[in-house]
């Protein structure tokens, strides 16, 4: 570049000759030079800005394009990462307390048709009707030849059926993968498990949703991928549940009952180890509820949870325990038991209009199951305190057990609680509760007096330590129940080595037309074993039992529910790991045997 001098000699001389100031020339040149420099700098800055702008533009376009791509693209698993997370099934398994499977998933197929792609529609319809006998060939053909572009033929098919359909060779018959819920144990614990069906359905997959029982109550847990396929562990024990169901079924048939329920519960935690309701159903093929038929007679009805019955004399121990807890009586206090007792316009009778009176000790009131003796104790307790006690045992609210049906098992209590209701409620009439209520109340009362809530989850609920009665009252109540089995109304309940204690209850069934049936009863046996060290509570309820082995049909609990319960204890207790103790003396020892 030619650098022009600031003071070019020629121009200065010229200016001097003209008498001008040569400094003006220098300033002018300086200005021009500065202008030139400024232009140059601006150009450079502009160039840099442009480059920078282009770079930023490219960067933002890249980021934006990537974001758009990510948002629009189909999600897929990261294939490069080493997969440590297992590929989880759609729905978690349900297992029992030992981890044995109660419900799991199976991969299977669904069958659908796309009529526009079909070649020989008549043959396809004929062959399908041959493979699936319940499909109607005419109807299929009508569907295939009609306007429909798509139709489901079967929701689930077995691999053999799939092969048979495949062999038809029809391109319009297509298969979609399906995950199916499987209950490998069949009818076992059917009411607890409930069942599952398909929710929203597509060709490639379908939602499996629970429709009843724990499947519905824990639907969100079971479907939550965040659990990583961790199974739902129930408090049930498969082998004990099977034994209980089998014995109960045999007992129901033997006693000519139309239904039966049993609840076996851990006394100190409220965990339900076995719960059965008969008749039952197969959750793999859950029957549709029959319209018209009474809900109570449906096999879907869970008698142990939903069935609220007047549980009869089994309630007497609550009255006796409360009276003892309040210090009104002791086990040997004599109470008035002169029957019949008149209260207003009502007359309270004993069973078969007997009279155990005039005086009975509290223990004998329980052992002989005296209505009048219990009624007198209840009147002394008073209706407010009685209601509070029943409430603390959970007898006024639906059970909090984790079944979707639990809220429907709401106890029926008198709307206005008068003295006559106090009297009848004290021996379990005029107030209805489910067998599970009774089991939880017995567990709370007899485990040492700490309230427990029934639960189906292994490990139980957190213990609140809330007391219903004192340790001492609880022990006295257990001693009374033990005497009922030793020489009271439940002598058939004796199981050698297990020190069963329990209370029978026989209640006439209410007639829907009003009043009570004369020859239809609900019999209940609520028991605890071993009575001196309570581990388990068992409640057995039979609906309309009748023991026809004698000359007259016998319907009392002592002849019907008690032998069934005893057999359940005989079968279940060894499985529960309880060692029979023939002689409960601690100082008794067996000598060493040798050859």
């Amino acid at each position, binding site marked *: 570049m030619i650098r022009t001098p600031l003071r070019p000699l020629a121009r200065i001389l010229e200016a001097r000759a003209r008498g001008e100031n040569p400094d003006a020339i220098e300033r002018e040149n300086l200005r021009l030079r500065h202008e030139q420099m400024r232009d140059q700098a601006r150009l450079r800055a502009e160039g840099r800005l442009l480059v920078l702008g282009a770079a930023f533009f490219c960067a933002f376009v890249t980021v934006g394009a990537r974001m758009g791509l990510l948002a629009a693209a189909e999600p897929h698993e990261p*294939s490069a990462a080493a*997969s440590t997370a297992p590929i989880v099934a759609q729905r978690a398994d349900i297992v029992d307390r030992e981890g044995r499977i109660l419900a*799991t998933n199976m*991969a299977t197929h669904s069958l659908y048709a796309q009529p526009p792609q079909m070649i020989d529609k008549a043959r396809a319809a004929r062959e399908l009707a041959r493979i699936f006998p319940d499909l109607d060939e005419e109807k299929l053909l009508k569907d295939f030849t009609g306007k429909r572009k798509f139709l489901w033929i079967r929701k689930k098919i077995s691999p053999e059926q799939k092969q048979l359909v495949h062999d038809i060779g029809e391109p319009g018959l297509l298969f979609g993968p399906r995950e199916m819920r499987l209950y*490998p144990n069949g009818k076992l614990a059917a009411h607890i498990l409930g069942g599952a069906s398909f929710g929203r359905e597509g060709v490639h997959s379908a939602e499996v949703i629970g429709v009843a029982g724990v499947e519905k109550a824990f639907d969100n847990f079971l479907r939550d991928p965040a659990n990583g396929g961790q199974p739902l562990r129930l408090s049930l024990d498969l082998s004990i549940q099977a034994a209980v169901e089998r014995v109960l079924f045999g007992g129901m048939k033997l006693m000519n009952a139309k239904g039966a329920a049993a609840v076996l519960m851990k006394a100190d935690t409220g965990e339900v180890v076995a719960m059965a309701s008969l008749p039952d159903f197969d959750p793999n093929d859950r029957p549709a509820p029959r319209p018209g038929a009474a809900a109570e007679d449906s096999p879907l009805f869970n008698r142990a949870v939903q069935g609220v019955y007047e549980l009869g004399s089994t309630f007497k121990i609550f009255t006796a325990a409360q009276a003892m807890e309040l210090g009104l009586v002791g086990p040997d206090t004599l109470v008035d038991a002169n029957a019949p007792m008149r209260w207003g316009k009502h007359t309270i009778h004993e069973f078969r209009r007997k009279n155990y009176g005039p005086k009975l000790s509290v223990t004998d009131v329980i052992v002989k199951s005296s209505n009048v003796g219990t009624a007198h104790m209840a009147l002394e307790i008073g209706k407010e305190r009685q209601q509070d006690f029943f409430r603390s045992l959970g007898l006024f609210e639906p059970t909090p057990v984790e079944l979707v049906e639990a809220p429907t098992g709401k106890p029926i209590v008198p709307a206005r609680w008068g003295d006559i209701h106090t009297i009848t409620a004290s021996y379990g009439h005029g107030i209805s509760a489910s067998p599970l209520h009774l089991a939880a109340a017995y567990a709370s009362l007899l485990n040492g007096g700490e309230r427990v809530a029934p639960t189906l989850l292994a490990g139980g609920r957190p213990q609140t330590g809330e007391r219903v009665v004192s340790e001492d009252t609880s022990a006295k109540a257990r001693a009374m129940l033990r005497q009922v089995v030793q020489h009271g109304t439940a002598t058939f309940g004796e199981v050698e*080595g297990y020190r069963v204690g329990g209370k029978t209850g026989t209640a006439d069934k209410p007639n829907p037309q009003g009043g009570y049936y004369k020859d239809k009863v609900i019999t209940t046996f609520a028991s605890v074993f071993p009575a001196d060290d309570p581990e388990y509570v068992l409640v057995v309820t039979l609906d309309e039992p009748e023991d026809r082995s004698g000359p007259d049909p016998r319907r009392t609990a002592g002849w019907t529910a008690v032998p069934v319960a005893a057999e359940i204890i005989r079968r279940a207790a*060894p499985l529960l790991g309880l060692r029979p103790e023939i002689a409960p003396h601690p100082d008794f020892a067996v000598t060493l*045997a040798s050859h």
Partner: protein
Amino acid sequence: MRTVLYVLSALVVMGLAYWAYNQNYRTHEALKETQRLQREIGQMRESLGVLRAEWAYLNRPDRLRELADLNFDRLGLLPLHPEQFGEISKVSYPAPELPPILSSVEVVGEREDTP
């Protein structure tokens, strides 16, 4: 000197390109392999699920009960009864062998009074 440098750098570029392509191919290979493995793992899990379901199905209490009934002659299985609980102290152990008496002095002793 300069020519050597050019040739060298060209060779380096070719080497690097070969290396980069090689890495690229190997990455693709590895990705394909992981995909195959993951598919295999998925299938294995599926069959594991089926096997577990089958195991549970074969071990269902109803079937075991039937099998026990069918094979009663050979196995003689009955439900567990309370009487079947034993106590360790009731098990008869083989009596320890007594050492031979070598001299009569060894069996002579003082009788202790039992408390």
